């Protein structure tokens, strides 16, 4: 159904979390607004709205988004995380964005390796 997403449930959750965050930041950066709903996530990512809603709700639970009815917006923590993850990465054009590793990247082999890869990339962008 989603050929590019990892097969492991935990990795798949991390994958969609990163993809959703990236789409939210993209829409925000282009001036299309600060909120998304499951339908907009589906348009952006091809993730069916029911699954998208589940991921969005988990991101609310994790403190990255806040929910107002059917709409979701970045929380202050989500905003800060995004700025750290995305905005400081501009100077190195070859540096991948979050979860932008190729499908063969070692980080897709297990949740532990995914966390190690994400940690490694976070250290690279730290000021």
């Amino acid at each position, binding site marked *: 159904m989603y050929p*590019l997403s990892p097969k492991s449930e935990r990795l798949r959750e991390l994958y969609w979390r990163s993809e959703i965050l990236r*789409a939210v*930041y*993209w*829409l*925000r*950066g*282009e*001036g*299309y607004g600060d909120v998304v709903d499951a339908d*907009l996530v*589906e*348009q*952006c*990512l*091809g993730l069916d709205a029911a699954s998208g809603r589940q991921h969005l709700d988990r991101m609310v639970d994790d403190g990255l988004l806040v929910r107002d009815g059917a709409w979701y917006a970045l929380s202050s923590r989500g905003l800060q995380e995004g*700025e750290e993850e*995305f*905005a400081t*990465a*501009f100077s190195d*054009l070859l540096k991948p*964005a979050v979860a932008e590793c190729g499908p063969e990247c070692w980080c897709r082999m297990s949740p532990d390796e995914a966390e190690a890869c994400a940690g490694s990339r976070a250290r690279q962008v730290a000021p």
Partner: protein
Amino acid sequence: MTDVRIDADNTATTARADDVALPRHYLRPCLLLLLAEGPSHGYDLLDQVRRLGIRAAEPGGLYRYLRLMEKEELVRSWWEPSQAGPARRTYVLTDTGKRALDDAARSLQNVRRILIGLLDRYESLEDDAATVA
């Protein structure tokens, strides 16, 4: 109005434009051309895509198609900070993208040649009808 649908296989289908059928995958050469003209951002690309005939193109569909093109290594992008607002994603064409644009242009030239042939015959038909009348 035009419907740009992203199919299950991640291909875009341009269904209608003011009741004029556009070529299948028309969004692809549009984006390749626009990025061949220079680096750009999502908002500007959406505006230009609409001017090229895909009037009902939406941000979500554009985002998804750009993401697909990035995975195909046709375009490259990065976050660019702004003094006035949030960071924006800047897109540029890769060498692979330039070759894809050349291929798309050749394909469209073939379509144009075929359509001109058809229209020439249609106009001859009208001329013949006028002569008989």
